[in-house]
């Protein structure tokens, strides 16, 4: 049986007027018109909605939609000594921005970043849940280093800090931890460094660990990518369609998350095409080892389309599983 998961983030607001409106709550909070407690309530209502929508869509392994995150690095950067939060800069090739961390001095762990929100997810979900964190290399690449000026050193320092986060997430009940390293796709020459850094983060964890590579290709990462110390690898099959053949031709023997639904375009995938893709993959790999997911986080899409993609994904996977094509 193929399973389904999501990659991470999810649209924070909907067009449904009756749903909790986090955008308006944040505006009011910034204008001092509502209290912190009221803002907190809006966050919790929104996260509950996001959990419920994934569960009702039938996704097997869900996240909290990263509703409290402005971008994938700031929530972590905020809790590391030696980092400042800098100005807005484009996030990869998307028309979306993140705040660039600036390395000012030696980095040191200050506090956990996502542990409380993970506990909330765990408590409020009936499905399996996944913790997601930015990978040390992507974190380093997205930062401006005014201190080390040396990507290797910065990556390894960040890995040590993220390791604490991962360890704590495991302690509070995370059975699945995903580490996102999109930057690796664009710096394949750094694969040994990234391999070392991921090993630092995952060493000794009992939770199932995934490395997710969205936005890019894996051609230049093979075969070393398959020796990373993780239980599974997530691959974006939309941004680089050749990734499918590359993985089919490989001797990969871990778990796979296949990002098959385009999370950066509103166009819905053709169901027949998806079924064919599932066919090809399951002829080579056992379906028990495979999760189907969107190609990256769903927050690049308006809410309605994001939800529709999730529903389509689960529906086609169910159809595939029922048909016994595997």
């Amino acid at each position, binding site marked *: 049986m193929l399973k389904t998961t999501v990659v991470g983030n999810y649209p924070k*607001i909907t067009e449904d007027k009756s749903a909790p409106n986090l955008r308006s709550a944040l*505006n009011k909070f910034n204008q001092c018109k509502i209290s912190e407690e009221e803002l907190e309530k809006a966050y919790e209502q929104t996260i509950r909605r996001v959990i419920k929508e994934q569960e009702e869509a039938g996704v097997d392994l869900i996240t909290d939609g990263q509703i409290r995150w402005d971008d994938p690095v700031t929530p972590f950067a905020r809790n590391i000594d030696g980092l400042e939060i800098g*100005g*807005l800069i484009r996030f990869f090739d998307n*028309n979306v*921005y*993140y*705040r660039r961390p600036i390395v000012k001095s030696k980095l040191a762990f200050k506090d956990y970043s996502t542990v409380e929100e993970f506990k909330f997810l765990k408590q409020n979900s009936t499905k399996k849940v996944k913790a997601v964190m930015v990978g040390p290399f992507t974190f380093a690449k997205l930062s401006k280093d005014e201190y080390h000026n040396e990507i290797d050193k910065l990556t390894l320092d960040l890995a040590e800090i993220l390791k604490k986060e991962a360890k704590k997430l495991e302690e509070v009940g995370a059975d699945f931890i995903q580490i996102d390293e999109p930057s690796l796709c664009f710096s394949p020459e750094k694969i040994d460094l990234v391999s070392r850094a991921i090993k630092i983060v995952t060493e000794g964890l009992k939770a199932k660990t995934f490395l997710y590579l969205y936005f890019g290709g894996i051609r230049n990462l093979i075969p070393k990518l398959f020796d990373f110390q993780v239980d599974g690898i997530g691959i974006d099959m939309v941004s680089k369609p050749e990734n499918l053949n590359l993985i089919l031709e490989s001797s990969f023997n871990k778990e796979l998350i296949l990002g098959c639904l385009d999370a950066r375009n*509103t166009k819905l995938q053709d169901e027949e095409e998806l079924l064919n893709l599932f066919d090809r993959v399951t002829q080579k790999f056992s379906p028990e080892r495979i999760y189907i997911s969107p190609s990256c986080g769903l927050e690049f899409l308006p*809410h309605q389309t994001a939800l529709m993609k999730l529903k389509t994904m689960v529906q086609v996977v169910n159809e595939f599983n029922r048909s016994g094509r595997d």
Partner: protein
Amino acid sequence: MLLTATVGSFPKPDYLVKARNLFSRKKISEEELKELERKATQDVISLQEEIGLDILVHGEMERGDMVTFFAERLEGFGISGPVRSYSNRYYKKPIAKGKIKRTSPSALEMFQYAQGLTEKPIKGMLTGPYTMCDWSFNEYFQTRRDLVLNLAEVVHQEALDLDKAGAKYIQIDEPAISTRPDELDLAIEAMKIVTDGLKAKTISHICYGDFTTIYPKILDLPVNQLDLEFANSDFTNLEIFKDPTFTKEIAVGVVDVHSHIIEKKEKVKENIRKALEIFPLEKVYIDPDCGLKTRTPEEAEAKLRVMVSAVKEVKEEMGLR
């Protein structure tokens, strides 16, 4: 020499923000909204004249997002629900759903209105085809190239309107151009279609990018002038343009539009002098890094005053008029 300008947008006054809100909820008529847009445009023009800028803009009081504004007026585009761009800011993203066609001019009306208010030149403001494509969803076209080239024809028609209406400068913004250096050839090909046969001086504004990946190739973009940001990175990116020699006119961004802090005049002067070490004086224009719409009206005005005053002093020191 050292003519001063702005990139395009000005902050909208509160009454206009409110009116746009009311209009979107169908509480006021289009004519009522337009009346306020014209009033705000008048104010933006008078302000620029009073500050002493050389090349004016109409201020984009009628526009929200620079891509969505045009997409809403074109056949073949739909508009999505809100998508977050950063922190708590959202925009509605266009969706290409069919062949893109123009049924009537989009930019012409406000250009003519603004130019009628002043003797100084008003820049005609357009969004480039590559950026239009990059910032839209695509449900129809097989390839990005197909969409970009279709859009190029449409933007060309917009440019021809402005040219015929007497625009001395036409600016075709391509802020997305530095996102994917491997598509730079496509952006250049599209711009060639847009600027073909224009009499006006053409400008393209590019921002938020790593110029190292697109320089010197970007000099092939078929426009007369490139408008780039420098203040935001404290002029550290100036070095990139030293070698090979910059061959076009350049508008140098000397105030940061993403900071509340008003630059010190001495600092701006120093940066202008630095820029003049790299670019030949006769090719340099001075402006802010980017559109001013994200600043408060007070901040925008203060930044422009510092900029104009800095340019004036640098000119005096150089013995220029």
